[in-house]
Structure formats: C-alpha cells, structure tokens
C-alpha cells in the first residue's frame, strides 16, 4: 500500500478554469491511466532534505499568514478590538504612570543625597564677626568639606527673590531671619554615629540656636519610595493578571466562534499547534496594540503635566525636568504587553482549544 500510492485526484495539471462540461466532452485521462507518482514517503536523502525544507518553508509561511490573518481579523472588527485595546492600555498605563512618577522622585532624591547638607541656625544676637569666627572654626575640622555663612541680610534677599512673597517681606519693619551656616560634611558614606557626633559638636556651641540635618529627610524619603516602589510592582502585578484574564477571555470567545473550523481542521489532520497558532498571534496583537495605546495615554499625560512640573521646579530653583519612559523604556513596555497578551492567549488555548475534539 505504501510503496505504490494511488493517485486520487489525477495528475497535476495546469489548465485554465474552463467549464467542466467542456472538459467532460474530451476524454479525461486523470486517475484512469497509471501514472508516475511520487512515493508517499521518499526514501532518498536528497528527497527527504527537499521535503524537509518544504516543510520548514510551509511552517514559516503558516506563521506569517497566521500573524497577518489574525491582525486583519482584529482590524475587521475595529470597534470591538479598540475596546479591548483600551482596556488593556488603561491597565498598563496605570502602573506605568506610577512607575514613572517614582522614578522621577528617586532621581530628585539622588540629587539631594549628593548634598548631605547640615543647616546650622545661629542665635539672632550673633554678629557677623562672631559668625565668621565660628565658620572658620568649623571649617578647620577634618570631617568638614565646606562651610558657607549666610548673613540675615543675604537670607532675606534670597527669600524675597525666590519665595514670591517680596511685598510681604517689604512690609516687615524688622528682619526676622537669623544668620545661618551651611555645613557640608566630608563624609562619603556618613555613618549615623559620625553624623550624630558632628551634630552634637555643632549644637554645643553657645551661638548656635538649632541644627537641621537635611539628610534625615532624604533618608525618610528613600524609605517612603522603597515602599512606593513595592506598591507599584504589586499593583503592576495585579493589573498584569487583569490583562491576562481580559485577553484570555477574549481569546476564549474567539475560539468558541471558530469552533466549526477548528473541528474540521483537526479532522483533516491539523495539529494542535497548527490550530493554536492564529489564536496565539491574536493574543500577541491584543497585547502589542494595548501597549501602543498605553504609550499614547502616557505620552498625552506627560505633555499635560510636564510644563506644570517645569514651572514648579523653576520656583524651587531646580533644573529638574520630568523624565518620560524614553525610547528603550517604551519598547520594553510594548514588548512586555505583547508577552502578556501571548501568555493570556496561551492560557485560553490550553484551557479551551485543546479540549475541542471532533466527536
């Protein structure tokens, strides 16, 4: 049976699509005469190599047709697809926004960390001369990098120019600000005890009213941000699960809609992988489309917020500017969304598609 497989459909013929009535008038040699037929399973090494490369070409071709067909199917129902894409986009944009926000805060925190400044406020009755003397005394210490004296007058001028409260300040009959020393310690990785001993030394001086450690605030901020990051990742995880379920459910419906087709394909010898391929691509397109829409949402939000942020930063004398995701970040986001879509489709395929068997 295997060695001489009969031809059922007749010799391969290339003939124009004319009416079969005309064809039946002429004698039809198809299938009647014994014909040279290629064996069912070629034995030669060369032949099997050719067959294999054919198979590979066909495999690649099915991938590309599946990819294109599934995209065309999505675009054929634009409203429905848009809905799904937007749901996914919102679920992605939410944690992404938080992530960008915290990344920016962290950047801000890093700037502060570099200047682990100590502000030393002097008593109001301390004269410039005395303050200058204290300044050189502190600067002489080995663990001090720099000390700057800000006199009450200087302080008032600065406050007037940056606070936007110039008129109010002008109406004061007396300068309420004390003199201050801005101390920058030399400690690279200042240990808590070293900082505390420095602080004690500064407080001990009779002309010092108060010592403020800005670093403590930086540390608290960092702690808060570590907590915030965990929240972002937790939220991101939950929403990714949501995306997975949305895509999984959408694919499940698509599978149900094409049930007849799946049954026929399985009956004529389609493998599970063959049947699954278009649905996996559909999931990928849902994910990538959702990721692109998420980028759009993020971009619009960025435009909306960034000018306000710049103004705010200017008010604080900072050249801080809001950082977006950037090119690589955007690509990562879309890829991540695509992978999530693929995973959602895969879950649906495993749960539903493989159970559809011809009965």
């Amino acid at each position, binding site marked *: *049976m*295997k060695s*001489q*497989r*009969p*031809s*059922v*459909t*007749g*010799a*391969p*013929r*290339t*003939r124009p*699509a*004319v*009416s*079969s009535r005309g*064809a*039946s008038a002429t004698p039809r040699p*198809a*299938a*009647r005469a014994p014909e040279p037929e290629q064996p*069912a399973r070629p034995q030669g090494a060369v032949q099997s190599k050719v067959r294999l490369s*054919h*198979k590979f*070409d*066909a*495999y690649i*071709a*099915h991938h590309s047709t599946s990819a294109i067909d599934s995209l065309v199917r999505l675009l054929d129902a634009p409203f429905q697809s848009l809905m799904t894409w937007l749901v996914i986009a919102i679920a992605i944009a939410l944690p992404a926004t938080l992530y960008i926000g915290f990344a920016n805060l962290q950047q801000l925190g890093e700037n502060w960390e570099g200047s682990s400044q100590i502000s030393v406020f002097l008593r109001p009755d301390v004269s410039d001369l005395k303050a200058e003397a204290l300044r050189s005394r502190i600067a002489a210490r080995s663990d001090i990098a720099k000390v700057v004296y800000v006199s009450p007058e200087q302080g008032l001028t600065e406050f007037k120019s940056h606070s936007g409260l110039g008129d109010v300040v002008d109406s004061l009959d007396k300068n309420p600000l004390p003199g201050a020393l801005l101390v920058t310690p030399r400690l690279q990785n200042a240990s808590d005890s070293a900082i505390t001993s420095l602080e004690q030394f500064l407080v001990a001086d009779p002309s010092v009213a108060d010592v403020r450690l800005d670093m403590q605030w930086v540390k608290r901020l960092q702690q808060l941000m570590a907590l915030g990051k965990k929240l972002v990742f937790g939220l991101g995880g939950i929403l990714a699960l949501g995306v997975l379920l949305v895509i999984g459910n959408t694919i499940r419906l698509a599978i149900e809609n094409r049930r*007849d*087709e799946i*049954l*026929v*394909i*399985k*009956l*004529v*010898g*389609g*493998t*599970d992988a*063959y049947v699954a391929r278009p649905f996996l691509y559909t999931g990928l397109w849902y994910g990538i489309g959702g990721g692109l829409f998420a980028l759009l949402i993020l971009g619009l939000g960025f435009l909306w917020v960034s000018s306000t942020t710049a103004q705010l930063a200017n008010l604080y004398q900072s050249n801080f500017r809001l950082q977006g995701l950037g090119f690589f970040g955007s690509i990562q986001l879309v890829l991540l969304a695509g992978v999530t879509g693929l995973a959602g489709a895969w879950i649906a395929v495993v749960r539903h598609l493989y159970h559809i*068997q*011809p*009965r």
Partner: protein
Amino acid sequence: MIRFDNVSKRYHSGFDALSRVSFDVEPGEMLFLTGHSGAGKSTLMKLIMLMERPSNGLIIVDGQDLGHMSSGQIPHYRRNIGVVFQNHQLLFDRTVFDNVALPLQIAGLPHQEIGRRVRAALDKVSLLEKERLNPIVLSGGEQQRVGIARAVVNKPSMLLADEPTGNLDPELSEEIMTLFRQFNDVGVTIMIASHDVELLKRMNKRILGLVEGKLVHDGVLW
C-alpha cells in the same frame, strides 16, 4: 488495510455501541457498512478516525496499531484518511477552493502544488468553474462533491464516508457513488456507511451489517 479484532466500545453512559466486532479489509477494497441508526456505524468510523478509543480489542490500520498511537501522532495519521460526512462539514467563511485546499495547507505543501492539486480534485468532481464561490450558494449535491474533493485532495490511501448520500435524491447519489467507484478503481480503500438498501443492492459490494453493535453479516449478499 483495516483490521478489527474483538473490538468493543462502551460509552461513559454505559451504552454498548459495539461489542466484539472483528473483520479485515484488504487494501484497495470497497465495502459498505450498514445497519439502523444507533447500530454502531458511526462509532466504527470514529474508531478508525481515532475520534474515539475502543474500550476493548485491537484496531490496526495501514499496519499501525491504533491503541499505541499517541495523541501527538493522531493528526499525521488522519492526513492519510479522507473523510466525507453527511452534513459536508464545509466552512462557509471561505471559497470552495480554500475549503478543498485546507488539508494541503495543513500538510504544508508548497503554494503552487496546492493550486494544482486543488484544481485537479475540483475537476474530478466537476466543480472547477465554481472554485471561487462560497459553498453556501451551492446545491446539496454540489456541497457533497466539494466535501469529496476535500477528502481526496491529499491523495489518501483510504476514504471513509458516513452517509454520503443521506440527503440526496437517487440520481445525485448515483453520481456520488460513481465518483467513489472511480477512486476505488485507482486503488483507494473505500468504506461507506449507508442504510440505503436500494443503493447497497445496486452497488453489489461487500457489506458489513451491524445490529445493536454486533456484526451480524459480512459478505456480498444481504
């Protein structure tokens, strides 16, 4: 080609669809399977197609023991069997051409080869001029012929047909039978399930008769 040895099939509901059925089919044979509905015709066909597994017994098709076939091998096994259904099982979201091309696309044939073979198969069933139509606009007999073209386009060594003439008038079923006979002439093993007694008499071929899941007749005359 097909060997059933003491094959029984009991469904989960407890219904015995087949009990202790044994027969042999030679390569190139054409035979009919008959019996009332519920006698086990469809179950027997489903066992050959591996749509069901037997509860007991041995089934060997084309030298392969179906009991030892993993689910991963089933698709490749099915590519060697053409199936024709009473309800055609055509897909109405694509043309006649694409319906017939489906088994070849699945098997991964090159594009031109698919075009050649599909046209040859459609020519065989005299539907070449309708290749661009949607099968939904075709008549019942034409749809059945599209189903036959799809079953044979992959040049299978075996053809199974479940009530292929069930909904057709005698002239059309004669036409379909002529087609089957032509395929059989070139060596294809053909098994047709039918309860049309007139048809069985006309064809005068080997008949397997099933009654309540038991094989009660095996031979030319009823």
